[in-house]
């Protein structure tokens, strides 16, 4: 369990993190979201004990990060921003070094490093100097370092930054796979990642938490959530708008586009949780409109993100 209470950090006159509190339990993947400079990295650096908080407490597995620093750090795996690794070492030597620091003895060290190399798809490059690797591989080497000792707490600062789509997919899959026995906090700019991976999301802006919700809960905040997208052929846009607005439960209808007699409309319900798709469909059919497509919007995270953080 990671418990954070009233955490603040000041850099000279600037308050980078302002009185935030949250906790993350086993099996949870917490997505940490926010614009650049919102205080994500600063928060993670405090959780890992790299920089001390100006105020507030951080307890990890029941230990205070300041009072039992070494105890806590043994249980944390950390992937810092930009995945720093020593460029002049071979992958396998670097991981051996990390393993020694983590207290593995000979036989266990060899086995653990080999396993981790396999898990992170580094087998083909394990004898290469890190400096000669691409950004994606470097990222994975640093990721390997963070999971080497199978820590119960994983703090990942933009783990998919700079990876290609396939690698992103792999890293996400690994995070999901490992999360069963771990508490994971990871920060990202990529909104699909939140939907795909997280069980919970915290959005932070200007140092304060502005949302703490499940990805589904966040989507519900979207204006689009629950509305129906409808595309019809051979229709007059005003006529169909009037027709749709008369349906019980429809708040309003807006025209998205009207080209070559193909009309795209957005139908908003009066209450978001009452589905209206079937009613819209029925109305369209009753009036002999040719429906090309119809679907209910799930909401858009980018829209929610923008409304919350600006």
């Amino acid at each position, binding site marked *: 369990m990671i418990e954070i209470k009233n955490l603040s950090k000041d850099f000279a006159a600037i308050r980078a993190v302002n009185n935030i509190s949250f906790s993350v339990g086993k099996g949870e993947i917490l997505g940490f979201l926010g614009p650049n400079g919102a205080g994500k990295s600063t928060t993670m650096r405090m959780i890992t004990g790299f920089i001390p908080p100006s105020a507030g407490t951080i307890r990890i597995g029941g230990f205070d990060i300041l009072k039992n620093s070494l105890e806590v*750090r043994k249980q944390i795996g*950390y992937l810092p921003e930009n995945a*720093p690794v*020593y460029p002049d070492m071979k992958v396998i030597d670097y991981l051996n070094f990390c393993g*020694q*620091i983590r*207290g593995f003895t000979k036989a266990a060290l060899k086995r653990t490093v080999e396993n981790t190399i396999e898990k992170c798809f580094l087998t083909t490059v394990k004898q290469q100097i890190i400096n000669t690797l691409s950004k994606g591989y470097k990222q994975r080497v640093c990721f390997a*370092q963070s999971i080497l000792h199978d820590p119960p707490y994983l703090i990942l600062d933009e783990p998919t930054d700079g990876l290609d789509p396939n690698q992103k997919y792999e890293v996400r899959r690994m995070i999901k796979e490992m999360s069963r026995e771990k508490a994971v906090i990871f920060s990202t700019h990529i909104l699909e990642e939140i939907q795909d991976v997280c069980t919970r999301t915290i959005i932070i802006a200007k140092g304060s938490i502005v949302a703490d919700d499940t990805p589904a809960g966040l989507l519900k905040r979207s204006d689009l959530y629950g509305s129906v997208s409808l595309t019809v052929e051979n229709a007059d846009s005003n006529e169909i708008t009037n027709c749709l607005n008369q349906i019980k439960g429809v708040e309003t209808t807006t025209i998205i586009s009207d080209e070559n007699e193909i009309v795209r409309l957005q139908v908003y319900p009066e209450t978001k949780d009452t589905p209206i798709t079937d009613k819209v469909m029925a109305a369209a059919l009753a009036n002999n409109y040719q429906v090309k497509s119809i679907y209910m919007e799930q909401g858009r995270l980018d829209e929610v993100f923008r409304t919350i953080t600006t």
Partner: protein
Amino acid sequence: MRLNESFRNIKAIQKRELYGYFGSPVAYVFIVIFLLLIGFFTFNISNFFEAGQADLNNFFQWHPWIYMFLVPSIAMRLWAEERRLGTIELILTFPVTIAEVILGKFLAAWIFIGIALSLTFPMVLTVSYLGNPDLGAIFCGYLGSFLMAGAFLSLGSMTSSLTRSQVISFVTAAVGCLFFILAGYPPVTAILSGWAPIWLVNLVSDLSFLSHFISISRGVLDLRDLVYYLSVISFMLFVNAVVLQSRKAA
């Protein structure tokens, strides 16, 4: 239990650092330049052969001056490089104490300089072949030189922790080294001795690496000189730790 862990961590860090030296051209360039310079000064400036003496005074007297800029060039990367690469964030969030990291890095660099220094062994062979040198004095000379290198190194390690720029780290360390050398240099003490109270003159010249080095390299192994070097090293590394603790993310 914790002590064992400490040794293990220091050893792991020290091993990695040494690996880093020999994994890059730094080590080879340093060793070659060190040997070339020391040979040049000893044979071409001090005229080792013409002196006609079977000792290594002409050899040891150049060590402080060569260390003055070669040791900072090794020390400058110790922390500035970690800051630049961002690896400082990992090493300081590993379950190791700051003291362990500092000691591991310091020992690696010191061992490395020791390796370079030991490669000057042909000098010993040469004087032994030419005459009957006092091997005890030569041993003391090497010991003194090694301790002095450690003192320079601790100063460089400390300045390196102040900045992410290796240039700044190098220049401040070199100037610091120059101060520690010159403090005991007769022209400098002469300036002071005209007006300053005698205790101040003694204090400044006692601070000098030079006066302690000269007495050791003459074969006089005084406990005070050993204590002096070890206290300089401890003090500098302590400041190093304080700086790191307070400015981790700088």
